């Protein structure tokens, strides 16, 4: 199952490292990353593949939200179908 990780917050050192580190810990494979920085606001969108069946998307989403809060970032993990259904027929 593919999921989208979106990160928004003030740009600082180590955001990408934190998120990708957490993915590695959870055995989640990163497929695609894109990031932009506009006026110091960091926005990253990551597409990942979740294969670990013991770890559900909602558990990972909750964990990442906590990690984000600790670092002053808004991190969300969402099932990719929500975007697919909205923009593809």
């Amino acid at each position, binding site marked *: 199952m593919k999921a*989208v990780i*979106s990160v928004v917050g003030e740009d600082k050192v180590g955001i990408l490292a934190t998120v990708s580190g957490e993915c590695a810990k959870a055995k989640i494979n990163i497929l695609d990353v*894109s990031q932009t920085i506009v006026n110091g606001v960091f*926005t990253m*969108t990551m*597409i990942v593949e979740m294969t670990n069946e013991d770890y*559900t*998307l*909602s558990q990972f*989403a*909750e964990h990442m939200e906590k990690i984000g809060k600790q670092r002053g970032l808004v991190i*969300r*993990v*969402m*099932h*990719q*179908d*929500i*975007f*697919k*259904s*909205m*923009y593809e027929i």
Partner: protein
Amino acid sequence: MQTDDIQRTIRMIDEECLDIRTITMGISLLDCIDTDIHASCRKIEEKICTKAKDLVSVGEEISHTYGIPVVNKRISVTPISMLVAASGGDPVEYAVTLEKCARRLGVNFIGGYSALVQKGYAAGDRELIDSIPEALARTQHVCASVNVGSTKAGINMDAVRQMGEIVVESALKTKDDNCMGPAKLVVFCNAVEDNPFMAGAFHGTGEADCVINVGVSGPGVVRAVLAKADKNLPMDTIADLIKRTAFKITRMGQLVGSVASQKLGVPFGIVDLSLAPTPAVGDSVAHILEEMGLETCGAYGTTACLAMLNDAVKKGGVMATSNVGGLSGAFIPVSEDAGMIRAAEEGVLTMEKLEAMTAVCSVGLDMIIIPGSTKPEIISGIIADEAAIGMVNSKTTAVRVIPAIGKDVGDTLDFGGLLGGGPVMPVNQTKNDVMIHRGGRIPAPIQALKN
């Protein structure tokens, strides 16, 4: 997948209040009917608590997995008057049973304390309607509705007269609880059988045993799109923007509905395309109309804007889902819409304007707080006029007015939560007793020679 699209969706959820307003499970209670009311109630509780045992947890799971809030989980059931017909006894017992189920399952509302009397009263109907004030006073989650007219049957004026009294009695019985009773009571003309929205949801007899219906929402998203649009754009271009937005919102509903139906093992019924406002900032239908170029909702031009909005929402939504149903359109509940509340407070939005708006919106006069001294006959008159609009135009109309006991124009009433609150609105109190007390039926209108 485009990064822009992903960020746009997240913005809709975070900033523009996009959400799934409700996942409503419709459950037929026809197989629970028993001649003994206690046995009937026992079977109901067993069936509802079995069918819907995972409804709340699945709703929460979808919310977490897809990152979209699922605000309400609700249940609608077969009109209870049909069960009363066979079992007899005190109908309130059914309301108490439904309340027990709602609490056990953790759902937000349970609808179906209803009777369909558009052409006349059958066994159980009068008893159920008589018991509505007591049932609503003794429960928190149970919603009641009565269908008093239809395009095919005409209007049952005896029921119209009775409902005026029931609304007032219901307010009196709950006067210490902000007159909450009538906020959970809808009087319909042309009620639909698969509506997922409260307070008017019930599970029609033509429906399958158990289905999942979904109601989406998103006035904030439509408003945000219109706010960004050039003020010189012609109306047809605005309609197009609304259509495109409605399409996206509805796709979300379709996804959530199909996932919920799969997880619960229950067939997917319909997506209701309604734009349902909440009192939250930025979640208002009135503000959409104002974005189209009206200073305040209620100004001349409001009905035209609402007609276009209602139609564009349907056109956009229809292609986005395999099964459209319910009420599908734009709701205009006054106390639940920040823009409507302000317009009513300013005196720009009046009962008369709202009545005109109901001729083109998805339902009717909804969540309107009226003076507590309003006579039952006046409320019956409001119901009769609304029902006539629905009957002649082959559309659903409804009345949900709340007489604020002990309050008058200039006061406010606050329900809290999604039901909101607002000013007591002035009502034309000219006598209509003779007409209302005539009773009988208004015959069904002719369906040809349409002018």
